[in-house]
């Protein structure tokens, strides 16, 4: 039976779920981000403690030193639930695909000046391992943090970083093939240039506090690496030397960072605004990890920047500090 109901108006009993109405303070229509996020994580009456971590509940706010009265105070400014997230990424993926096709079909990789090509191979290709490390670290953030508002973007970030690692792999394949990937991995494992950064990434992998890991990986490391590599080095320095095709191949990363930093900033802002204690802890983590990240990035940046390295890294650090201060973290 088919009923044509266009002419019938029926009055709903309620406009959203009770948990959302309680949080909104009224029974009014909620967004799909709200319905897909708020209170999604179970909170009480867990049956068993994890055999892998008997000191904690399955979801346990005490895994971090940061304290929140309500972990749903966090809000992703992008309002990403799965559907919004995949559709946004599919659109970027379309652009990236078109860019790769453009560069490939016109043989633009072969037109790159030798020094630009060498920089890309030495600098960009090993970064696929850094992105892979971030994939793992964000998996941790998603798995062990508290409340869906905080944990949910973790899985998106993890998969984004896997995507970035795969785009960088494609850059390597496009410019040289599988051998280039092997050489880059060799540098990552043994060359002095990369050891500070590799140590940083591996040290992050053993961090148990998910919010500290968020700060070390997403705020400090990515907050310096992306502006430095994709904005300063690729978009400015290499483009000026005839490396515009490289900027096309990394457009995803540039756009991605501009988007995701709105989330990291909002997250820091909410956590810092909660209490003086949070502010203090976050400031300590940020300055500690920032200093380490900046130091490990110096030799990496030198591959492309040579004598301008110190100056440009200092500039990026300065912008970073301004960003964090604006987010309410006293540095």
């Amino acid at each position, binding site marked *: 039976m088919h009923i044509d109901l266009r002419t019938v108006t029926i009055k709903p009993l309620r406009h959203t779920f009770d948990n959302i109405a309680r949080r909104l303070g009224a029974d009014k229509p909620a967004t799909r981000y709200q319905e897909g996020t708020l209170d999604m994580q179970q909170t009480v009456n867990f049956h068993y*403690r994890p055999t*892998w971590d008997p000191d904690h509940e399955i979801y346990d706010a005490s895994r971090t030193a940061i304290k929140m009265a309500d972990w749903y105070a966090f809000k992703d400014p992008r309002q990403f639930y799965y*559907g919004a997230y995949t559709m946004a990424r599919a659109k970027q993926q*379309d652009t990236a695909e078109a860019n790769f096709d453009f560069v490939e079909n016109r043989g633009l990789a072969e037109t790159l000046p030798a020094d630009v090509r060498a920089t890309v191979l030495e600098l960009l290709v090993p970064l696929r391992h850094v992105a892979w490390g971030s994939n793992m670290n964000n998996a941790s953030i998603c798995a062990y943090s508290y409340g869906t508002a905080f944990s949910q973007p973790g*899985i998106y970030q993890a998969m984004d970083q896997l995507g970035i690692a795969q785009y960088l792999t494609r850059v390597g394949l496009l410019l040289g093939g*599988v051998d280039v990937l092997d050489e880059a991995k060799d540098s990552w494992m043994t060359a002095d240039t990369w050891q500070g950064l590799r140590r940083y990434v591996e040290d992050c992998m*053993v961090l148990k506090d998910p919010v500290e890991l968020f700060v070390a990986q997403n705020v400090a490391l990515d907050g310096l690496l992306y502006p430095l590599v994709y904005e300063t080095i690729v978009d400015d320095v290499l483009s000026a030397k005839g490396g515009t095709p490289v900027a096309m191949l990394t457009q995803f990363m540039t756009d991605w960072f501009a988007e995701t930093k709105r989330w990291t900033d909002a997250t820091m802002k909410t956590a810092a605004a909660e209490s003086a204690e949070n502010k203090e802890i976050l400031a300590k983590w940020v300055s500690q990890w920032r200093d380490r990240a900046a130091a490990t990035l110096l030799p990496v940046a030198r591959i492309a920047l040579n004598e301008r390295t110190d100056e440009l890294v200092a500039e990026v650090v300065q912008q970073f500090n301004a960003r964090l201060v604006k987010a309410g973290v006293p540095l």
Partner: protein
Amino acid sequence: MDMQVAKKKLGLKERYAVMTRGLDWVPSYQKMEDIYPYMTYEGIKIHDWDKWEDPFRLTMDAYWKYQSEKERKLYAVLDAFNQNNGHLNVTDARYINTVKLFVSGISPLEYVAHRGFAHAGRQFPGPGPRVACLMQSLDEIRHAQTQVHAVANYNKYYNGMHDFHHAHDRVWFLSVPKSFFDDAITAGPFEFMVSIGFSFEYVLTNLLFVPFVSGAAYNGDMGTMTFGFSAQSDEARHMTLGLEVIKFILEQDPDNLPIVQRWIDKWTWRGYRVLTLVAMMMDYMLPKRTMSWKEAWEIYFEENGGALFKDLARYGITMPKCAEQIALEKDHLSHQAWSTFYNYAAAANFHTWMPDEDEMAWLSAKYPNSYDKYYRPRMEYWREQAAKGNRFYNKTLPMLCQTCQVPMIFTEPGDPTKTCYREVDYKDSKYHFCSDHCKAIFEHEPEKYVQSWLPVHQIYQGNCFPEGTDPTVEGFDPLAAVLKYYHLESGRDNLDFEGSEDQKNFDEWRGMATKNV
């Protein structure tokens, strides 16, 4: 041009290998056991993670492309469904109770799966399984959210699902599905993979989704049908991951076999007990039936699962022993479950009813060996009593099984007239079980299962009343207090379908749509 020739296009397998395992490295600044601390305590031995075969080789760009296409289609259907009051197209309003059961019982589990696979996807040292697990983690949050979004429209017009997150953590029978997933995520990463990835996804998930989703299709629920089929397309990937995990673990070391076999036995049984809810949904709650529970079990477990276990025999894996008992129970399970819910309808978040004449005839035909002999007489009696105004709602709390947490309603294997009780003395307490299998699971890990948050025990201990309740005052009504704690509104969310607000509204709204008023 020479370079072009050298750069021969990589095939799917080679390409995927450089896109995943090529990214990984052996750490040297931190120890493997500090980065992957949970890899050994379960006793599983893995010698070479590179032997892992990736089943579907999806890179992220392809993932985003295809998944966004699915999402676009799904939300277009949901929007159309909402705009056209699609809920009034369902066969009859009793159907909506299956949606209530689903959103409060199953959707929260999808969320746990999301977090569990993030955990497993962080902990395996092998890049292949890690990526597959993380992709599944991402899919699972999709399922949790699309289900909530699909049900959101039903919630606007019907009762029982308005506070389903709250209910899931508290309502007595919802501890059955909840404890199942809590059990899995608190186990080690390997057991988690066998429990959810293999036993649940591969062996049992067809029984959950295919009947539920075809049930939705049969009953005119386009929204649920669409999210169901759309989610199921991810399940195909998940099932394949589950199968690869089992094969991989078994191929790595012969010592893994007994551990894995025990997990398969345990999780097939745990999963089956959760499917009790699906069995009664299929046989009693869908106004238009797709197939009986017994038929579904025969197709998807006995036939399909049989093929699977035959395939795994070369590793030494055998069909779980519990399959024999399940075969004996398949004539009884749904009837015993629905009878229980009919009894306890005052404390549930959905409505119940007794089957009408036609439905009883269908049950007799589908269950020739059991329905008329054991269940029809009691159901006819209850129906008569209700018609006479003697509808009896049981307010005495049932004893629960310590392992599966289903009330102890099941009968002895082979004797449907005798309730099955098992017990174990452990330390200073006595623990009760619905079956030999639940008892065996407890005996293997008593320290885990003594922790169970049993709703009935908790009520008796006074932990399930709203804060500030004084149970000692005269005239204290424990059920009313428990319903408040559940956030269920007595008279609207619970009791029989007959006379409910859902029934009244649906009839009125549909009347407005089909008649001139």
